[in-house]
């Protein structure tokens, strides 16, 4: 479900979100003209992200994160990689939807094997080595034969089939800012819709907020499942 512009307008108070590594983001209500639109799934802590991000050292705010950048145009690849690296992220570039699906297939398969091994060994914490891992996908929408929405649908299907419960945060990063495109992005399973070109601090805020929102939802879902099992 999309948070929608109506909900964005009625959110009335700022919220602080404590993330890992002591980072804090303050969310404030934003007008509908804000160019970051999150896909909220009923989580009460999610709000549209204002570009006034306070209390964060934006210089290396993405330190330790691994981003899969899916972008077909050379100019945008160069700018995207530079911005992400300046923010401290590790970047893997793929040039189309098919390559994104391949990269995610490797990651999902590795996570699936690890999950099976953990189940066999009753929760022992075995690490898989040399398996690719991404914390987030920054996905261009309009690309060649497999566009961002199509790639996202395939990735979500693969995740569901793997049954590990994982769902990688995916941000639609697009210059095509229309209601139809936005709707299609959310319907395909993307989590946030970000207008291109985005300034560094907006990109950083969108990435941090999307990861935080997904991880909050993931832990809520786990708790709900634990309750159901009792």
């Amino acid at each position, binding site marked *: 479900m999309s948070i929608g512009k109506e909900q964005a307008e009625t959110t009335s108070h700022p919220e602080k979100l404590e993330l890992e590594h002591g980072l804090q983001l303050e969310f404030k209500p934003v007008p509908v003209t804000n160019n970051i639109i999150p896909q909220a799934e009923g989580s009460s802590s999610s709000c549209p992200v204002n570009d006034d991000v306070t209390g964060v050292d934006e210089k290396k705010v993405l330190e330790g994160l691994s981003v899969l950048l899916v972008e077909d145009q050379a*100019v945008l690849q160069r700018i995207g990689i*530079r911005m992400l690296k300046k923010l401290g992220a590790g970047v893997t570039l793929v040039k189309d939807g098919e390559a994104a699906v391949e990269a995610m297939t490797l990651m999902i398969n590795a996570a699936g094997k690890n999950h099976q091994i953990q189940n066999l060994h009753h929760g022992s914490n075995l690490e898989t080595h040399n398996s690719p891992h991404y914390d987030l996908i920054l996905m261009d929408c309009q690309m060649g034969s497999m566009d961002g929405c199509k790639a996202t649908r395939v990735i979500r299907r693969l995740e569901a089939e793997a049954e590990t419960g994982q769902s990688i945060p995916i941000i639609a990063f697009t*210059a095509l800012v229309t209601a139809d495109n936005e709707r299609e992005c959310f319907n395909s399973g993307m989590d946030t819709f970000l207008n291109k*070109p985005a300034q*560094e601090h907006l990109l950083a805020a969108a990435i941090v907020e999307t990861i935080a929102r997904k991880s909050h939802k993931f832990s809520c879902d786990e708790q709900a499942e634990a309750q159901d099992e009792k």
Partner: protein
Amino acid sequence: MDAVTRLHRQLVDYSNSLFQEGILDNQFGHLQQLQDESNPDFVAEVVNLYFKDSERLLNEITVALDQQNVDFTKVGGHVHQLKGSSSSIGAQRVNNVCTAFRSFCEEKNIEGCQQYLQHLKQEYYLVKNKLQTLFQLQQQLLSAGGSIPAYEMR
């Protein structure tokens, strides 16, 4: 006035004129802020990629509009790509022409598309010329021993 001061002033005046005329917007400034000691030629690299990519796209649009049965979806796709890269480097006027051109593609309006292709080429070659002049002025300033002024966001 010594050479460095003169060249510095010339560069600042020229740079300001590009923003005042709407040829460049703030996005170009953001690009300049991504340049530093570890990436000293970042802006030039990106702009040169932009020139190469844009000329390829303009050529593809020209060929596509010349066909007996024009594939407006294909033309629109190329225009969208050009819009994306133009907006990312701050080529504001090119970006604006792309927006209008895209509407003609959606309407499958061949005359509108052909007219706007010419308009697009004019704006593209104008921004190319201006950026090349800007880089030349920067180079002259650096050769004279000066340093490129930091961009002030508007």
